[in-house]
């Protein structure tokens, strides 16, 4: 199939009310949902609001719900969806600002709470030293470093939907990424956050975060690994102080 007409059914929000808009898109081979949204904006309704930046699955800006599942609009080809009707909605578990644009501030605040950077006891910026790492050490966290913070995992997490204070899968995966990094020396500080009331113990292992991650990061795996580390950390703290 080289070309077909597809109806885009887009969930809209104008700040006061929610409604649906339908647009007919001439979808060609290779055309992505993001290109379809740009087509709507350029030809039908310039008020349609959505986020996009890199258009190549790197920035994570264009994550939206496509036919009920969170995906990157720039990486989802219209004809691959095998449907002449495509339902486009904003991500769940986020406050909608306008149309497909959601509020990400809280998500990034949660991410920053796990200190997503290398913590070193002594940093000498005047004479920087190369931190040597073996491939085996790199492989322990590499997969988790691929997270693009698109929010897809957070939008399907049932724990995040019922608890506003839960840090969420992306933040947890990021915490594990740095805890597993041999160069990092912030284990204790980070574990205090991870073991806290809004940390790993709020996860109920629905595993949906790993299922929807467009980069194959497997946040659920990171959380379970973190949970085991967390249990050991808490026991050690309890008995050894």
């Amino acid at each position: 199939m080289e070309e077909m007409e597809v109806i885009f059914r887009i969930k809209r929000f104008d700040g006061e009310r929610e409604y649906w808009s339908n647009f007919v898109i001439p979808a060609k081979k290779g055309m992505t949902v993001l290109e379809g949204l740009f087509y709507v904006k350029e030809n039908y309704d310039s008020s349609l609001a959505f986020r996009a930046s890199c258009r190549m699955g790197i920035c994570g800006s264009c994550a939206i719900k496509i036919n009920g599942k969170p995906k990157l609009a720039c990486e989802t080809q219209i004809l691959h969806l095998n449907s002449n009707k495509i339902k486009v909605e904003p991500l769940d578990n986020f406050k909608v600002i306008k149309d497909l644009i959601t509020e990400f501030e809280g998500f990034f605040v949660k991410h920053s709470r796990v200190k997503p950077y290398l913590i070193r006891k002594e940093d000498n910026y005047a004479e920087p030293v190369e931190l040597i790492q073996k491939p085996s050490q790199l492989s322990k966290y590499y997969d988790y470093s691929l997270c693009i913070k698109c929010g897809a995992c957070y939008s399907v997490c049932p724990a995040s939907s019922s608890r506003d204070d839960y840090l969420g899968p992306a933040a947890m995966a990021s915490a594990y990424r740095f805890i597993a990094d041999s160069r990092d020396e912030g284990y204790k500080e980070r574990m205090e956050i991870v073991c806290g009331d809004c940390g790993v113990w709020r996860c109920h292992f629905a595993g949906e975060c790993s299922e929807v991650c467009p980069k194959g990061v497997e946040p659920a795996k990171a959380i379970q690994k973190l949970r085991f580390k967390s249990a050991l950390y808490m026991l050690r703290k309890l008995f050894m102080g």
Partner: protein
Amino acid sequence: MWLKWFDFRKKSLFHISYSLHRLTGVVLAVYLVMHLSYLTSLRLGRGVYEYFISTTLTPAFLGFDILLVLAGVYHGVNGIRLILHEFGIAYELRRPILYLCYVVVLVVWLYASYVLYSYVMGV
């Protein structure tokens, strides 16, 4: 919002398993309260207790019992799967393990239902 965890439209089998696990947990908690209430009726005399129990050992109650067994078996088997993964064990095998869980639940439930049916109906 508080029921969003139960929304498994367009979700994977993992999410459905999670929702069912929580639902069966609620069912078992309600059953536990009923069970303890029945046991507490012993304080009112043996006759009262036996009257309560006799109402549950009827063909009309059999359907509820069979569903209760399903809830119990599912919650138990899926719980073992969750404990396994939550210790970081066999995460990579989570899909075949999930399918295996459903097979085990089905087999155990069918056998338990058969035993229950034979006992209640006197077959």
